Structures are given as structure tokens and as C-alpha cells.
């Protein structure tokens, strides 16, 4: 869950759309893991793949933005009690 939220936050920080190489670098993940997580995020409808020429980009959907907001609240509540998330 933490990794998924991290990936979404990286994309959001890049302005809502990011190249997989940028996500890979900033989320500190292996290529294989990133692919698995991005597929999961697309399955859940949190990100969508976009093609600009021969380059692939990933964008956060509205559902993804709502998830990040909800996750942030969950993180705050958990840390308020000193519990791991």
C-alpha cells in the first residue's frame, strides 16, 4: 500500500504525468517491481497510461488523487497514535 501511494505521489509531484524512468528513479524501485505496481494501479483505476509519440507516460486519475488524499489522512491518523501503516 505504501509503495502504491509513493508511486502516485511521485507522479503527482511531477505535475500529474510522469515518465516511467522518472518514477523508477524517484520511487527507488526496480524496473520489474515498478511494472507490477503500475499494472496494479491501472487495474484499480488510479493511473492511466498515455502514449505521446513513441514515449509512454503515466497520469494520475481523479480516483488516484482521491486515493492519495485518503491515504494521507490514514497516514496522519496512524502516526498520531504512533502506529505503523
Amino acid at each position, binding site marked *: 500500500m505504501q509503495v502504491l501511494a509513493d508511486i502516485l505521489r511521485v507522479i503527482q509531484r511531477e505535475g500529474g504525468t510522469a515518465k516511467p524512468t522518472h518514477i523508477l528513479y524517484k520511487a527507488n524501485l526496480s524496473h520489474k517491481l515498478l511494472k507490477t505496481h503500475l499494472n496494479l494501479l491501472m487495474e484499480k483505476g488510479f493511473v492511466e497510461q498515455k502514449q505521446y509519440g513513441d514515449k509512454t507516460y503515466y497520469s494520475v486519475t481523479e480516483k488516484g488523487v482521491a486515493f492519495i488524499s485518503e491515504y494521507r489522512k490514514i497516514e496522519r491518523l*496512524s502516526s498520531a497514535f504512533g502506529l505503523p501503516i
Partner: protein
Amino acid sequence: MAVLIPIWFYVFSSLTYVLAAVVGNLLTYFAFKLYNFTGKREQKFLAYAMGFITLGFIILSAANVYGYFNFQHCFPVCQFDVTDPNYTLVIKAGNYAYYFTSLIGYILLSMTYLKSIKIDKFFGIMPLNIAVFVQTLNNGFLYPFDNLVFQLFHLIAIVILAYINFNTITNYLVLKTKNSFPVMLGFLFIGSYHFLMALTPFKPIIFAAAHLSLLAGLVSLLWMLVQVNRRG
């Protein structure tokens, strides 16, 4: 010794319990939301702990509201066993149920910070807990209410809350976040509420001070919920 309750404060203490039930419901809702999100055992303990503590306050507030509207004056202070039988019965049952559910809640909350205990083991001893409760309740109705259970409850609560306070203070000192501060403050005030309640047989004003402390604890926890749920 009797628990000394100033008559003028009766409405305020009842309202404090109602507020505690409302804040408790909010905390339970968000704690279960947290648990559904993560599925972790710590969050499970937290959610059930909040649920039991809230249930205790719902019962206590219902008994107190009933008591307030059926109050028979006794001067200069009110003792539980000098009013009409129904009043005594409702207040007693309400208080015993509150002690029982609150202690379960506090024990579960302390287990949140204990790494190796699973919730199933706790509920495994529930039949024993219920048997002890029924026996205590039975004794409470058979014999005059001598406040032994009342003080025992608050003393046990102080001990458990000392452990919870230790963890919330440590958490605040480590994280120093806006959200961990009201949680630390909230449980410190709730701890002092139990401490002052244990001293109520000595002076009626302590009863009022205890409830002000509970109120401060509830406001702190409400403040935390507002901070947590802010946008951004």
C-alpha cells in the same frame, strides 16, 4: 466512603458523558476506517479499543441522562444509595457496564502497543471476563454500594493508562508532529480524569475537576481528528 457529587454539576457531568460518546463514535469510525485500509493487527486493536470505550460512554451517558431526569434531591451531596430504587438500579447497572467495557477498551488499547499479542487470544478469555463481570454485578446489587468497585475501576484504569501515556508521550517526543501532540495530551487528560475520580470521596469539587479534565481530553482528541481530516 461515598462518591461525593456536587448537585449543581450533575447536568455538566451527564453532558460530558454524552460528548464523550459522540467523540468516541467519531474515533471508532476513523479507527475502523484505518483498519479496513491497512488490515494490520495494531489498527485492529485500536479500532476495537475505541469501540469498547465508546460503548462504555454510551451506556454511562444513557444512565446519567435517565438519572438526571429522575433525580431525587439529597443534600448537601448525593450518595448513590439514598435515592429511589429505580434510580439506584439504573445508575449502578450503567456504571458497572461502563467499568467493564472501558477496561476492555483500555486493555485493547494498551495491546495496540504490545507487539506479540493477537486479538483472538484476548477474546479467548472473554467468557472468564463476562463471568467476573456478572459476579461483580450480582454483588453490587446484593450489597450496599460501597464504592469499592468504583475506586478499583479507576485505579486499574490509571495503571493501564500510564502504559498508554508512556507510548503516546514517546511517540510525540520521537515524531514531534501536530497530530501526535493532541493524542498525547488527550490521553494525559483522560488519565488525570481517572486519577481525580479515584479521589472524589474526599471532596465534591474533585468530581467537577475530574470531568473538566475528561472534557479537555475529549477536546484534544477532537482537535486531532480535525487536523487529520484537513485537506491537503
